[in-house]
């Protein structure tokens, strides 16, 4: 497929379809195409996809059920004061939509996902399910030593699932592909930050989400195609304000929420949606021990987000302020899932730092199935009004 012939509409249509497909037909087809292929699901926020890829598996991003899924059984597992993503994930499981998935990775995000990993073991005893705990000590000799060993156990788990060994070269090869993916993703983000009217977030978002469900090389091509096609579009620039979105690192907002924010006069120029492909901020070295390389990059060059400890008090929120500066945002919308402890406990701290830096912000909550957009429009719209009229 060549970039020149594909229009933005084509690419977005493919992504949108994948994003909406609660039966994961792409992954099913990928698996069926060759005997012995395995699919490994992973939840937000960060898993080392290169190892899954190196094992010859398709890493399949599972980000809840969105607003299109009717959750019937999922609610039976959770009280009303717990966020939506675990219940819709369970709904996906009990309605057999994930029956082709051979393994599930539950990365460390919070106690909800942590407990979900055990529930999965009970419900689906035949699926390899792994709680993947990254260190909160960022010293190479302490957290690093621990993490390299965890990565090794992770790799061994995958070897057990696939019945084949994963060599260091396998991992290096995959790391290269994912380095390219991360680089292209950064480019798309930079492209959008520069000309947000050419790359609306309602498109960029599904482009990224689809990327976490498909073969990495295919996605790399798609990212290039998208940038080429988007640059060629004739879209007028509107009198909108530029904002960055934080707080949404795990449960994803409905697409309508993103659209509503844009409709209310905002260009989204940075965000922390589906972070996996931006979690590591630099290339992972491809020489030396590949697991150590992954570990070091995590320890030294990963984003600041609510599920990570910030060892030094002064550094809290630094990442966010730098991101605002880099993307040229005029303000921040701190939008968090309801009942999300990590994001909500972080919110006052990050917002204090934004205030100190003179960055205007607003905060609100959503759920992946939020249906009422009027309050969202009103809040985002007033925010846009205020930036437009007075700054």
């Amino acid at each position, binding site marked *: 497929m060549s970039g020149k012939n594909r229009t933005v509409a084509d690419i977005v249509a493919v992504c949108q379809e994948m994003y909406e497909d609660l039966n994961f037909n792409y992954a099913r087809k990928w698996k069926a195409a060759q005997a012995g292929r395995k699919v490994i699901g992973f939840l937000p926020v960060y898993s080392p996809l290169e190892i899954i890829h190196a094992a010859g598996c398709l890493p399949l991003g599972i980000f809840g059920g969105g*607003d299109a899924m009717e*959750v*019937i*059984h999922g*609610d*039976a597992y959770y*009280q*009303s004061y717990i966020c939506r993503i675990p219940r819709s994930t369970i709904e996906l499981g009990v309605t057999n939509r994930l029956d082709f998935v051979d393994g599930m990775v539950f990365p460390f995000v919070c106690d909800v996902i942590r407990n979900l990993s055990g529930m999965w073991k009970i419900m689906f005893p035949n699926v390899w399910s792994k709680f993947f705990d990254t260190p909160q000590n960022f010293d190479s000799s302490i957290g690093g030593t621990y993490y390299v060993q965890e990565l090794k156990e992770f790799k061994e788990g995958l070897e057990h699932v696939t019945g084949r060994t994963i060599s260091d070269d396998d991992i290096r090869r995959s790391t290269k592909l994912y380095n390219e993916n991360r680089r292209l993703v950064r480019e798309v983000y930079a492209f959008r930050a520069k000309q947000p009217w050419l790359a609306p977030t309602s498109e960029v978002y599904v482009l990224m989400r689809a990327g976490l469900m498909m073969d990495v090389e295919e996605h790399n091509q798609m990212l290039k195609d998208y940038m080429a096609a988007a640059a060629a579009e004739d879209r007028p620039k509107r009198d909108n304000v530029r904002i960055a979105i934080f707080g949404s690192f795990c449960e994803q907002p409905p697409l309508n929420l993103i659209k509503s924010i844009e409709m209310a006069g905002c260009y989204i120029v940075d965000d922390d949606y589906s972070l996996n492909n931006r979690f590591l901020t630099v290339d992972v070295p491809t020489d030396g021990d590949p697991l150590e390389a992954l570990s070091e990059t995590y320890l030294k060059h990963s984003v600041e987000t609510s599920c990570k400890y910030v060892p030094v008090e002064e550094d809290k929120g630094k990442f966010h302020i730098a991101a605002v500066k880099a993307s040229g945002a005029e303000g921040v919308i701190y939008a968090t899932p309801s009942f999300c402890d990590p994001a909500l406990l972080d919110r006052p701290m990050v917002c204090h730092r934004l205030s100190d830096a003179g960055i205007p912000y607003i905060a609100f909550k959503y759920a992946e199935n*939020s249906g009422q957009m*009027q309050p969202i429009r009103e809040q985002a719209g007033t925010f846009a009004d205020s930036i437009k009229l007075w700054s």
Partner: protein
Amino acid sequence: MRCFIGIDLGSTTTKAVVMDENLQILGRGITNSRSNYDTAAAVSKQEALIDTRLTLFRRGLAAVPEVAGKVDDIIADLERNFRHVQFLEQLDDLERTCVTNIKGPRFAGRERAVIEALEGTFSRLRESSAAQYAPGVKRKSDFFRDLAGAEFMSHGEAVCKEANLGFDLILNVYDKSIIEVENRPPAGDMEGKFVRALEKGTMTGSSILKPVQAALAIPLEETYVVGTGYGRVRLPFPKEHIRSEILCHGLGAHMMYPETRTVLDIGGQDTKGIQVDPVGIVENFQMNDRCAAGCGRYLGYIADEMNMGLHELGPLAMKSNKSVRINSTCTVFAGAELRDRLALGEKREDILAGLHRAIILRAMSILSRAGGVKDQFTFTGGVAKNEAAVRELRKLIKENYGDVQINIDPDSIYTGALGGATFAVRAVVN
């Protein structure tokens, strides 16, 4: 004769069931729960006793050869006329109360006009009431408040318009008075009402007067009363006469359908999923948590919002074949969502269908939480009267649990009271 009574004091309606010692249901009564629980309990009990009389009449008439084959009509006629008399009496009471409530500065200088408007409204109400109680007419609601209220709105608005008077004024008088009237304990003279009803009936004949009088003469003794339901702690009974509503619902469903294993009850502000064993003992249950979203009251809000009767919602939703996805089940916000959707050009019936689906989806979650649905499945509570809700439920049960037998009794709203009455029998007979 010995009567065993179960009273289910619900959040929106209060139900009573009268049983004999052989566990046969003699009568059922219902009223809306109002601010005075004692009155609600007394009214529902009285209604059930009236219904018991009807049962006794039926039994009496069964022995009269002349009316063979016509008993149902006679009883229906009797009941209709009786209800009409009852309605007119309450209407008189309401009018008197309204007039006494015209006081205070907001009415200063306008008393005369307001009284005239009220008189006009009430006379139209009386006229139109005959049509409501005509044979074969389906009434919008069983309760005086709703019946009088709806008519009052339409006639009142018209009368005020003609008189060039603010409708708010007499609406306010009405709001004030209706509570007073509802909360007045029922007047005693039940038999007198019956006789009057009988006189109005088309079937006056000495051959039936006698069995009727004989039935009236049987003394009804309140042997044991069991209370249950949301307001049970406020019932004027000692503790040992009170049972948890969960147990009563479980047992009640078992009495109606002995093979039932799963019960769903959707009431005014709670939804319960209950599993019962083969002898009617509750094995497991779940209720909605502290949010009343998706319960029966939700439909009440919607009906108000659309200016429709509760009984009319279901039929309208049935006209839809494409339901709109509704996400907010917050009872209060439902009204806003409804308006939003209407503004977007969605059809009323489709939105309504979506709202019904939303309620049933919540119920499905609760059922799932209570351990799923096993054969046979019984749906009870006020919402079981709503055909659109039932349609969605059937669909979803089939999709999620396959072919299970679904029982819905037209009298399912009485399930809790039935369980209570059964407990009452057990308390004495055992």
